């Protein structure tokens, strides 16, 4: 079903300058992240708050400028392009954001928001063509073409997110980066939007980078899943394998903490505090070392590289 990489990320590192204690410091939000997104694949990136998953997505299309690393798309290194050469790339890689209300201009009609990319890049052959393409795109996301004349405040959360998806697919992109696209939605609406994304992926042969904190949602839609923690990918494996048998101790802890909708399997939760350390005080070794039940002396000295442990399964752990 999937063939060859459409997007390759290698050694991506992005850091931010923050002011702490009166002086500027750099915090690496994403550290040496590498992965490939294959043609027609949905790759999930999952992790907790501040793990860097959003920054990965934003770095790929250079909404934030990475410090190091390469992003190859359609044979070119996106990171090396000048701003003007970057523009066509942004038609090939589109983003869908979490909050469909914040990402839509409240004073523009829905149809104009959907057509925006086409207007900027001259994709329309006159106004009739523009109206036709907008109507087709609205139908493709399951909305009546009459929605083009409405304003965002007239729409429900689920409808707004459909508009957000319509904006992304209008220029027929190859890749969509969806950053928490269903997190603001109720479960019954979430299921509708997830089905829509899966359908579009199939029909348009899209490749999807699906970023979310919700393991169940990521597992439902993705072919493969990457688990991030404090800027690093700690595990990357096919969905069935990673959920059935997580190899990294952090992945295992994360999976175990997800409250399952089944009262027969209750988590034997501990009330003891165990939280990620501050991003400001980072040591050389594995970022999970303080919370890890199987850590050894080596773990606090060197960061384990992401290595192949089985067919298509990558784990960054000395002891896995």
């Amino acid at each position, binding site marked *: 079903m999937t063939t060859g990489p459409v997007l390759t990320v290698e050694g991506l590192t992005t850091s931010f300058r923050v002011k702490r204690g009166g002086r500027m410091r750099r915090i690496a939000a994403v550290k040496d992240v590498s992965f490939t997104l294959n043609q027609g694949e949905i790759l999930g990136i999952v992790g907790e708050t501040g793990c860097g998953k959003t920054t990965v997505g934003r770095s790929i299309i250079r909404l934030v400028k990475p410090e190091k690393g390469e992003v190859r798309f359609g044979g070119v290194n996106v990171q090396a392009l000048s701003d003007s050469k970057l523009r066509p790339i942004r038609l090939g890689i589109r983003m869908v954001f979490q909050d469909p209300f914040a990402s839509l201009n409240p004073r523009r009609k829905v149809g104009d928001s959907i057509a925006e990319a086409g207007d900027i890049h001259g994709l329309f052959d006159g106004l009739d063509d523009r109206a036709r393409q907008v109507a087709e795109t609205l139908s493709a996301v399951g909305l009546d073409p009459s929605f083009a004349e409405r304003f965002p405040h007239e729409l429900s959360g689920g409808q707004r997110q459909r508009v957000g998806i319509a904006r992304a697919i209008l220029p027929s992109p190859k890749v969509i980066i969806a950053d928490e696209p269903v997190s603001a939605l109720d479960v*019954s609406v979430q299921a509708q939007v997830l089905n829509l994304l899966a359908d579009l992926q199939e029909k348009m042969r899209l490749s999807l980078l699906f970023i979310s904190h919700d393991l169940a949602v990521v597992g439902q839609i993705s072919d493969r899943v990457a688990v991030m923690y404090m800027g690093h990918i700690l595990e990357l494996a096919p969905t069935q394998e990673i959920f059935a048998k997580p190899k990294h101790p952090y992945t295992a802890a994360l999976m175990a903490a997800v409250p399952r909708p089944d009262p027969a399997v209750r988590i034997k939760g501990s009330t003891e505090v165990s939280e990620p350390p501050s991003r400001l005080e980072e040591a050389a070794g594995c970022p999970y070392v303080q919370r890890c039940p199987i850590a050894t002396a080596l773990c606090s000295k060197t960061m384990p590289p992401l290595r192949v442990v089985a067919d298509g399964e990558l784990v960054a752990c000395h002891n896995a």
Partner: protein
Amino acid sequence: MLSVEDVTVRLADSFNVVSGVSMRIERGEVVGLVGESGCGKSMTSLAIMGLLPAPQARLQAGSIALDGKDITSLPPYRRVEAGCGGVAMIFQEPMTSLNPVLTIGDQLAEAIRVHDGVSGPALRHRAQELLEMVRMPDAALQLGAYPHELSGGMRQRVVIAIALACRPQVLIADEPTTALDVTVQSQILALIRELCDELSMAVLFITHDLGVVAQLADRVLVMYAGRIVESAPVGTIFREPAHPYTRGLLACLPNPLARGRRLQTIVGQAPRPHEIGDGCAFAARCAYAEDACRSPGADWRQVDGDHGVLCRHPQSGQLVQ
């Protein structure tokens, strides 16, 4: 312990956001109130606390009793007092519940002073004791910390500690773990369970997350469009739900180990409060709805001893996922 009878909350004198909600919660019991955005679950909790945002929202009908004592007309601060039973509430976002310019110790002290009337070393001792109750590491040291120095999980522990200052017999928790990461969430859920058992409190836990309900609650109330549509022990709700809405909600949960990407869905969306008619509010989305469902008068019926449902066509049998 807590008994709510037929509570109706009316918004802007024009429509009801909560209609005829009744519930009883016993000591040492966690009751999960679950529903999607706008179903009226938070309004129900505010009505119990007497915190309905006046003048827009007001209690149209119904009564609230604590330990047999009617508290419906008491102002909120009297409901918190230990003398009349004590109800305390915690909210979703701990940062907005805490004062950013006061230390944790000061904020605990404020609550303790009100309830215990102590000062000096006794006050400090009680503040530390409360932080220890919520398993705060280095409790004595943390009394001097400001909210911004703590993580989200720690802040929620502080908020729980402040709520415990009045020795509540009823704790209402409105989405207390929604803003937290899953690994921290599981710690806070475990804490709430333990505190419920240790202090034999009655806990009303409000959430949109069916997973959290399954993990924590003893009994579950499912709310839709302002009404409780199903009530049952937690095992029954997840194994043999009777209301088509509950069944639909459970069926559309993502399941990573299931084959295939497509999820079941509930068609359409929940009505907004002003769109709710006289008949069953779920009829428009329901596969089993008949003409009769669209006319008023669906009665609460007991499917089983402790399993009740507001539906003319309750379903039976296990849910296949």
